[in-house]
């Protein structure tokens, strides 16, 4: 058997590297009907903000070739309801939780992190993912993740709110000229790891009505079609770490993973853990299936430890 355990930094070990992707698995109950969410390395919840949010109008999605576009607008119950209902439920079924937090200002991120920290089920939390692909109201709605300073600001404030032993992951957007700059700013500001990648900004026109198909006009592109962009982003940042351009921290890979083979691509490029997002809509059991397939593949290739496969494609 391959040793699948993975070290996420700050001494956090997970039994395996497979996770859900934020916003593609809700907060656990729904997928628990298909598989035991405690079988995952960690369960990543939908990005939560300070207050309840209704999200955007509909249509909120469009299917695209080998992918989809979405514009949900971070609909959610707010951090209060999250720590009172969702987190305790996840804890009750034995899940390890990686909550994803969001905000419209760096203060909001910090406030969400603080509420999370002070909550009763916080001991089920194995790390916090900071979704910095949110519009920054203070800067004409420019997405935090597009600006190294704004990103660093958010990460720094969140890091301060959380206990030392909880690793903080900055989730990066691929929609930037140089992702290593943003990665570097986040790590320097205190991120213990990076999650890559969030969706690409895209758009679909409804050619019957000749208007934007999504209520929100633009949306996030996800699914297998964007996997090459995810692999490239992970590779570039990992390469920058090898070259000493930023400190080496674990990378959680996400983007277009549908099979164990796909997961191995991201791992070989440098990811220490894998999230499965859009593929869940095709196959609700995808995260555990991908874990099984990845494990079989590693074993067939003679790997004894999952960690030996991480970044293995560099320097070959």
């Amino acid at each position, binding site marked *: 058997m391959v040793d699948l355990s993975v070290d996420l930094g700050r001494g956090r070990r997970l039994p395996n590297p497979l996770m859900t992707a934020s916003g593609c698995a809700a907060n656990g109950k*729904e997928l628990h009907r298909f598989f035991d969410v405690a079988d995952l390395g960690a369960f990543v919840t939908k990005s939560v903000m300070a207050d*309840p949010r*209704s*999200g955007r109008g*509909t249509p909120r999605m469009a299917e695209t070739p*080998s992918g989809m576009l979405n514009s949900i607008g971070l609909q959610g119950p707010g951090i209060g309801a999250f720590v009172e209902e969702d987190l305790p439920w996840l804890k009750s079924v034995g899940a390890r939780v990686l909550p994803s937090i969001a905000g419209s200002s760096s203060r909001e991120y910090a406030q969400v992190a603080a509420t999370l920290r002070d909550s009763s089920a916080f001991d089920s939390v194995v790390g916090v993912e900071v979704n910095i692909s949110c519009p920054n109201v203070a800067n004409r709605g420019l997405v935090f993740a597009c600006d190294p300073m704004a990103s660093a600001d958010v990460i720094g404030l969140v890091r301060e709110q959380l206990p030392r032993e909880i690793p903080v992951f900055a989730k990066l957007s691929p929609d930037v000229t140089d992702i290593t700059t943003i990665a570097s700013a986040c790590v320097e500001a205190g991120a213990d790891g990076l999650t890559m990648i969030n969706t690409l900004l895209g758009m679909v026109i409804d050619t019957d009505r000749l208007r934007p198909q999504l209520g929100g006009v633009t949306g996030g592109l996800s699914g297998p079609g964007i996997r090459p962009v995810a692999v490239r982003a992970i590779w570039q940042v990992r390469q920058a770490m090898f070259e000493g351009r930023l400190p080496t921290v674990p990378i959680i890979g996400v983007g277009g993973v549908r099979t164990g083979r796909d997961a191995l691509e991201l791992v070989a490029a440098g990811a220490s853990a894998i999230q499965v997002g859009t593929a869940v809509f095709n196959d609700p059991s995808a995260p555990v299936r991908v874990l099984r397939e990845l494990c079989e593949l590693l074993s067939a290739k003679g790997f004894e430890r999952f960690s030996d496969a991480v970044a293995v494609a560099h320097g070959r």
Partner: protein
Amino acid sequence: MSERSLRARVTQEVAEVIATRRVGAYQHITLVAPGVAELARPGQFVALAVGGETSGTLLRRSFSIHKVSPSGTYGGTVEIVVSAVGVGTRWIVERAPHDTIDVVGPLGKAFPLPTAPVACVLVGGGYGSAPLFWLAGELRERGCHVEMVLGAASEDKLFGVVEARRSSDGVTVTTDDGSAGQRGWVSDPLPEIIDRTKAGVVYGCGPMGMLESITRVAEAHGAVAQVAVEESMACGVGVCMTCVMPVVGSDGRTRMVRSCVEGPVFRGDRVRWDAFDGGHARVPDDAVGAPKVGGH
């Protein structure tokens, strides 16, 4: 509901097509899916994967369950009625017997059944009638008087007129072009039927505009409308938040609720019809967490 029963209520299976035939403008398909067949209730739906190994169409397509036979020669079967409108439905209707399709179901909430034997009117637009015959059977078993109204743009787009006569106590047919039954909309004969039968519930399934008018007519004539909606769904299982609609909760507040898990059946008077406009649904200003600028 206990966690255990929650986890047991949905299944995913690779279903064999055992029969497929053309019915007017639609394809009537029978799938061997014993797990789904055993669990399903009228009003629920199934989500089918499309296109096999080379497929670039990732999202499942949803179909109302027309009928289930929990046991039979082939094991339990599930029947659906498909209108080929795009790439996914075209692929599905092209499946031949013995081909397989990956099915997830049953999904969503079923039509609520009245506890007393009240009269009911079941209204179906186009293939929207598909789930109603099964429902009619269940209602009559409970002693309800059942009438059906089937409407469509034209005769070929009506589904199940013969079956309706078998399953109910009275059938009215309408077509927009008058090619079958009376010319007009399903909402035209509805007031008379509700009044005559003293119907307590009107069940509806069909396009949004139709469901809205059924709701108005039912309200005006003292009946409760239970409507099965059809929103664009990416996952069908409650995890993506794409299928939401503004619906008023028991606390009187409007929320954007997921039609795949909290629907597809809603009480008509709870749906915020005022928010729908040409394929878009706005978030009403008074909704919980009203819209702000935000990420996706």
